[in-house]
């Protein structure tokens, strides 16, 4: 492309050739932009179109589940992407309620490194997580944020949480943590939050499979490539209608049997309610230094025992806060974790369309334990509810009437709750119509 330096040429040679020359030159940037746009547009489309996935030997659902169960992946590291759309109102609103409730309980705690509050952020939007594990007693989970990172590190008996954004740390040791003992994942209070949240695909998969029964169809739905690994897709679908759950898809690594991706689709269509998957995964042993943590100089460290004392009864609320994550519906779908310790819970229906009827729970921690969400615990707190929270609750629900009298329905994409004026609460992972029907039947 030798440049023609004669500036006069355009005037002497006349318009047409000058125009053509201009047009050909301007074609270059247009072509570059076009190629870029095509690449950006087509590559994901092609990847999706080639969606038949890799060729793998046929496998039955039974074999695949066994493969997952037999999976013994002790060492791995990688990045996860978690996208949740629970249909909750904006999290800031919930935060203010949670904050108000916390304050009224006299348990406002300043530490931003506290795992309970931190992990609640995962309940909405899209986040990048990084995980690393080496055996049963070394794990690490970090939430990647803008120019900061929140890390939960377990190394033997020590559990650390470090929030680099505020330079605060949270420390617990195994004996502080008492009877929380998680099956895997970190233990201790912070770990309790992590366990409730179940961010690793393997935990999520285990819970869903437990919930499967004659109400559920479990099939192998082709193959996929996840994070560069060939994987089978296990498709779990409710056989009943009325559930808010459309389907659950779990991509399982064909070699190791490790679940790599978990997608919970809504029966109402639209974006998945929860989508957690590895974007990168490596089954090699992570660097030992990954699990070392010494708080840097000047870091404010909160110890678990102090924090426990400060929290007291608030701890349970917090657990239910973390429950806003997948743990909650996992619990609701399978076994209602707190159901056995409270006498006033009735169930209507079974399987996926189960609706729980709670009769005017006066004891707030009981309500939290039952896994009822913001609506439920809001209901139980009505007597001492701060005005702002009351207003918010009012704006969240919608009025309904039926055989049960009248009440408010609180809707999310996964769990719906009906709070009647006579103090009964119906909660289930069912659509609003199914919920009202169940409530009508019960009366």
């Amino acid at each position, binding site marked *: 492309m030798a440049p023609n330096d004669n500036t006069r040429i355009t005037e002497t040679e006349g318009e047409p050739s000058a125009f053509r020359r201009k047009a050909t030159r*301007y074609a270059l940037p247009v072509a570059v932009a076009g190629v870029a746009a095509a690449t950006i547009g087509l590559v994901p489309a092609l990847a999706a179109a080639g969606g038949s996935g890799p060729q793998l030997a046929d496998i039955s659902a039974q074999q695949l589940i066994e493969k997952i169960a037999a999976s013994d992946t002790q060492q791995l590291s990688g990045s996860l992407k978690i996208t949740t759309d629970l249909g909750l109102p904006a999290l800031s609103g919930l935060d203010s309620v949670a904050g108000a409730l916390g304050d009224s309980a006299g348990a406002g705690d300043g530490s*931003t490194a506290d795992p309970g509050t931190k992990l609640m952020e995962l309940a909405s939007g899209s986040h990048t997580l990084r995980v690393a594990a080496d055996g049963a007693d070394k794990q690490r989970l970090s939430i990647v944020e803008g120019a900061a990172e929140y890390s939960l590190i377990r190394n033997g008996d020590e559990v650390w949480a470090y929030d680099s954004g505020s330079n605060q740390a949270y420390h617990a040791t195994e004996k502080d943590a008492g009877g929380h003992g998680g099956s895997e994942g970190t233990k201790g209070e912070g770990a309790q939050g992590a366990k409730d949240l179940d961010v690793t695909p393997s935990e999520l998969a285990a819970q869903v499979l437990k919930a499967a029964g004659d109400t559920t169809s479990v099939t192998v739905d082709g193959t996929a490539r996840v994070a560069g690994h060939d994987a089978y897709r296990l498709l779990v679908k409710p056989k009943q209608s009325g559930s808010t759950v459309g389907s659950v898809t779990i991509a399982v690594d064909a070699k190791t049997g490790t679940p790599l991706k978990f997608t919970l689709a809504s029966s109402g269509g639209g974006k998945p309610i929860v989508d957690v998957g590895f974007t990168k995964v490596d089954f090699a042993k992570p660097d030992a230094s990954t699990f070392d943590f010494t708080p840097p100089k*000047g870091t404010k460290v909160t110890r678990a025992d102090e924090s426990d004392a400060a929290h007291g009864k608030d701890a349970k609320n917090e657990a239910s806060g973390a429950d806003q994550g997948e743990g909650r519906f996992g619990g609701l779908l399978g076994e209602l974790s707190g159901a056995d310790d409270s006498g006033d819970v009735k169930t209507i229906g079974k399987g996926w369309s189960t609706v729980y009827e709670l009769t005017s729970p006066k004891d707030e921690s009981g309500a939290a334990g039952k896994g009822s969400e913001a609506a439920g615990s809001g209901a139980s707190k009505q007597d001492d509810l701060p005005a702002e929270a009351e207003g918010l609750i009012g704006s969240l629900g919608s009025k309904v009437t039926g055989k049960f009298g009248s009440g408010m329905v609180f809707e999310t994409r996964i769990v719906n709750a009906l709070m009647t004026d006579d103090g009964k609460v119906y909660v289930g992972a069912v659509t609003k119509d199914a919920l009202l029907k169940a409530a009508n039947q019960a009366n």
Partner: protein
Amino acid sequence: MSRAEPTGRAPAAPAARAPRPWWTLGLLRSELALTFGRARTLALLGVLAAVPVLIGVAVKTETGGGGGVSDAGAAHGPAFLTQLTNNGLFLVFAALAATLPVFLPMAVGVVAGDAIAGEAHGGTLRYLLVAPAGRTRLLLVKYAATMVFCLVATAVVAVSALVVGALLFPLGDVTTISGTRISFGDGLIRALLIALVVAASLIGLAALGLFVSTLTNSGIAAMAATVGLLITVQILDTVPQLHAIQPYLFSHYWLSFADLLRAPFYWDDIVKNLEIQALYAAVFGSAAWARFTTRDITA
């Protein structure tokens, strides 16, 4: 050498076609001398050097040299400030994070916008083209000089921050934002890497500024347009409803340089940033070339 044999307008093209790397280098050198000799450029660099001093002194006086940054201020201030009082090296990261959104790109916008339009405005562009340089080569040299300015401007911020940080705060092992600990030497290497990534983050804007610069004969207009575009893009980047286009804005991944402070490195966003910069450089660089090689130079 060949500079002594300008052969007039028409035969200039064949002369320019001959490969003369030294000649280009000479042109680049004179271009750099011109850019960095300007009082305006030096003033810009001075402002950039002052930013870390300002941050450092402010943090130092606020904390009284003793404890850490107060909890209330920590969560809302710029990134990396919380660790600053314990490790002066963090002033490099904090200063780069503070200057990257505004000061650095503004300086680059001024230099890039001025590159061609300033010459045209001063009436020197046609004399430059009389020399057997060729428009393409002149444009490349202008772009190269702008990129050198990106690098120098970033280096000025980083070095000033390092000096101020070392004077005001203790130095030592560095805790990454993932909570792992690396030696001070490793920390310095990461600071260098970060400075390079920050400088590379400005390449796209430099190409955009150069293109704007070829559109007009007024240096001021080109600078204002470039800086205006910069501000517009950054506003667009904050509007949640526009999240669909945000990944393609040149400033979207700028702060991803912080990912170099994680352990292990988290490359995804940095790679995306560099891809976006390369794309902007290709599109607007070639657009600038198309415009510059076909337009009438009247001034």
